[in-house]
């Protein structure tokens, strides 16, 4: 029986792994052009947070900084700074959820897009209507489920982590990006 269980377990894992594939809904180029259609240039501005900065972001946002490296571009239209594009990852039920956050030059959220989502339930978080509620949020916004962010049943963990992720990014803007560019 043990051999049977063992064989079935590994067979199921093997089959599942063989059938697994990454579902990428949006590429970096696509989110760049949808967030900043008027941009003429994207300047790579990746952030490597210092321990002090990470600690300050955690204190300010109340959200853990799991990765001190942040993929960022400064969007320019001719010589004018028009905003920031940040690619971030948050924990989903099984895998990371990759999403992009575009910030206006004043630090308010311009657009949020889910680039990669591979969870069982809650694909509705990719719905532009759900993502729209983040637009205009600025540093200091509550970003709490059932308060200023509506929840999606069956995807509460994903909704909570995206809301927390945006809160962390707004703190990152306030502490690191605000005075750059």
């Amino acid at each position: 029986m043990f051999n049977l269980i063992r064989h079935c377990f590994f067979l199921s894992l093997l089959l599942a792994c063989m059938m697994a594939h990454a579902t990428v809904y949006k590429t970096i180029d696509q989110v760049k052009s949808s967030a900043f259609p008027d941009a003429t240039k994207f300047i790579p501005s990746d952030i490597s947070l210092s321990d002090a900065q990470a600690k300050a972001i955690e204190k300010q946002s109340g959200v853990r900084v799991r990765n001190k490296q942040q993929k960022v571009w400064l969007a320019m239209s001719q010589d004018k700074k028009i905003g920031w594009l940040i690619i971030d990852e948050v924990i989903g039920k099984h895998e990371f959820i990759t999403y992009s956050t575009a910030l206006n030059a004043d630090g308010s959220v311009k657009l949020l897009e889910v680039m990669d989502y591979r969870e069982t339930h809650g694909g509705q978080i990719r719905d532009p209507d759900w993502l729209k509620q983040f637009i205009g949020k600025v540093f200091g916004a509550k970003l709490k489920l059932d308060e200023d962010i509506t929840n999606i049943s069956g995807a509460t963990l994903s909704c909570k982590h995206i809301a927390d992720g945006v809160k962390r990014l707004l703190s990152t803007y306030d502490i690191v990006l605000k005075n750059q560019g």
Partner: protein
Amino acid sequence: MFTSRNFSKLFVGTIFSSVLSISPLVSNADENNWGYVYGADTLPKGSSELYLWATDRRHKEHGKYNAQDYQLELEHGFTDKLQGSIYLLGSSHSIQGSAPLDTNGNPEYPDNSRSGITGAKAALKWNLLSTYKDPIGLSLYIEPGYNNRSKISGEKQDEYSLETKLILQKNFLDDTLLWATNLTLEAERRKFEGAGNGWEDELEIEVTSGLSYRFAPNWSAGTELRYHSEYPNWRKEFNREHYAIFLGPNIHWGAEKYWATLTYMANIVGAPQAEDDIRHLAEHERREIRLKVGYNF
């Protein structure tokens, strides 16, 4: 001849084939992080899950004992907070000289080698507090069932049971570290074949607790602790007849459509104890292994 070994292979093989054949060829996932401990989450409204449970129990104080319990479960979310399940039960026994001896030196049950479908259960799980939004997740669970074979001896019986659970869950470290604890009360009423009107009542009290840490995308590992106790004729006298404590590791893999969990539980201590042993082995085994495989649709 339908032996218990053949039945095990047939049952597991059939279920695996069915699960795989109805699945689309896309990437997969859902969650049951523990083999024995229940989490507080419920399925969202309109979604369903098909599970196979297979538990292998082996080794008594003496002789040869191996038994397998199977459950095929279909679960459905009626609302976002209420889910229902139906279960088909099966079991196999292969017993040779492992029954405990009564005061006259006779085995308490005969040797047995059998397998088959044994019963059915239904369950409702109601989520009262969300693990993700409230300070602690809380769910209530109720499960009436019928089983026509004794779990220990494999003898024919009629057994009606009503299991109730209080399920608590708390997550830490961005929901990568999960802790859950269940308090289970199960009332059973059974009559062995040929026992006339001799119905027996029994109450089982069980506390299970588990940790599960997601150490890599799709993969979690943890540990489970189970305290099990039984109170025969509990309506008349509330005395604990025996208890057993199990402890062991588990590993869980989950993706978009499929998940699987494997738990090893070692019987570590109990009473009344077997001779020269600190464990209770009359109604439990030295170890259990449980595999659960789920498919979401």
